[in-house]
């Protein structure tokens, strides 16, 4: 006789976005969320998020969380749990089916600590047409050529120690200080923090040599070589 089970429990490790909430009723929150999501709607569409309550004194009733959930849903974000919540906040969160995630730091250290930057992702193989590499929250370093039709995306900087012929999208989560460096710059498209340039708009003298791309006064600038910009 075969035994079938209705469910199977397996472990899984996921990267979740964390939204830090100070005051759930602050109108600025709505605006800031909208700005953030508008930078790259694709990444945020129906993304699960954890609410970090380390700076939040409110959010002590189930109604607060219901209102917060509605606000996030309007921006197509799906709250799945809370982090760094007080006992009272945690009880209210559980009442509306939000899970408790363990805090970023050990209990007690509730105030902000310096963030540790994640290690950059290193790619040593050629990045072929049709491939997409995304480094969430960090830098991307490629020591091989990147073909036309390939796509590099990073929340931080992108370094290519080879020919960059595909697309490079740095500061994908909105970091305006992110830059793109290419040993041989022939990109199809470059973008930083939502601003972009297609190759047609790139002056031909920038092509074929080392270059970096930076966002200067809200415009993408292509700087030859490794100058400070």
């Amino acid at each position, binding site marked *: 006789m075969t035994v079938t089970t209705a469910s199977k429990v397996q472990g899984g490790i996921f990267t979740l976005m964390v939204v830090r909430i100070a005051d759930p009723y602050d109108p600025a929150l709505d605006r800031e969320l909208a700005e953030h999501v508008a930078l*790259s*709607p*694709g990444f945020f*569409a129906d993304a699960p998020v954890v609410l970090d309550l380390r700076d939040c004194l409110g959010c002590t009733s189930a109604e607060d969380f219901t209102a917060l959930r509605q606000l996030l849903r309007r921006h197509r974000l799906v709250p799945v749990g809370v982090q760094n919540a007080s006992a009272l906040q945690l009880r209210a969160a559980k009442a509306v089916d939000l899970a408790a995630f363990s805090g970023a730091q050990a209990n007690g250290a509730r105030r902000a600590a310096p963030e540790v930057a994640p290690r950059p992702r290193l790619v040593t193989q050629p990045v072929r*047409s*049709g*491939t*997409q590499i995304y480094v969430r929250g960090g830098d991307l370093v490629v020591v091989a050529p990147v073909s*036309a*039709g*390939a*796509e590099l995306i990073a929340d931080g900087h992108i370094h290519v120690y080879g020919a960059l012929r595909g697309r490079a999208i740095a500061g994908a989560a909105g970091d305006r200080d992110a830059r793109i460096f290419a040993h041989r710059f022939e990109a*199809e*498209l470059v973008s930083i923090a939502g601003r*972009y340039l*297609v*190759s*047609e708009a790139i002056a031909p003298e920038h092509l074929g040599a080392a270059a970096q791309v930076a966002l200067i006064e809200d415009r993408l600038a292509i700087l030859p070589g490794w100058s400070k910009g």
Partner: protein
Amino acid sequence: MGKVIVVTSGKGGVGKTTTSAAFAAGLALRGHKTVVIDFDVGLRNLDLVMGCERRVVFDFINVINGDATLNQALIRDKRIDNLHIFPTSQTRDKDALKREGVDWVMRELRNEFEYIVCDSPAGIEHGALTALYHADAAIIVTNPEISSVRDSDRIIGILAAKSRRAEKRESPVEEHLLLTRYSPERVKKGEMLSVEDVKEILSLPLLGIIPESPTVLKASNTGMPVILDPASPAGRAYEDAVARFIGEQREMRFVLPERRSLLRGWFGRAAS
């Protein structure tokens, strides 16, 4: 309401993208507001053939996923008024063509354009089925070669069974045979299936014969639809086909080998 034309073949490498580009350009040159869509997700090439690869920012999949609007993704051709190119994604696969999303895009395009030319991927899987689903007319691109004819026959069967028109029991998709890479010289020698053979086997009305011509490669090298090259026999043949498609009568050309004197032939060979 715009008319949706799918350019399909089953087999790869027979000239679907060249035909889509030439056909869309031909319709636009005649003043019809036309868009040509690349359905070959993951193997984008229409942008190259149309010469707009340096202007692609957003694509079909971005629009389906709601990351960009239709107008952001449509690329206006710089040479021909009324012609727009709708590129596809290179980094995704064909499963990203979600049914509801494609339905919505096609509805919007029908409202906006007179002709919507869909460049189908090869094969008979999801991508090809999605491309032909909305078709009002189909151009079956066939090479005079057994594997291509057999695959065309297969895709004609699929059109009759799986298109939206078949599903909704509307009048069937209008089918046209376009014979490409045709070499009258080789037909004469008995090395290649003739127009009559292919017509008889597939029993489809013939829209045109596109002769094998080096100008097709030259056109795609330079990113210019071959129909824009007045010196190209293939370009003239496409122009004829477009004219027939919209109801004009045109005599079939390129059926017989070009008459050349023996002398010219010899000189031609010596010069090449």
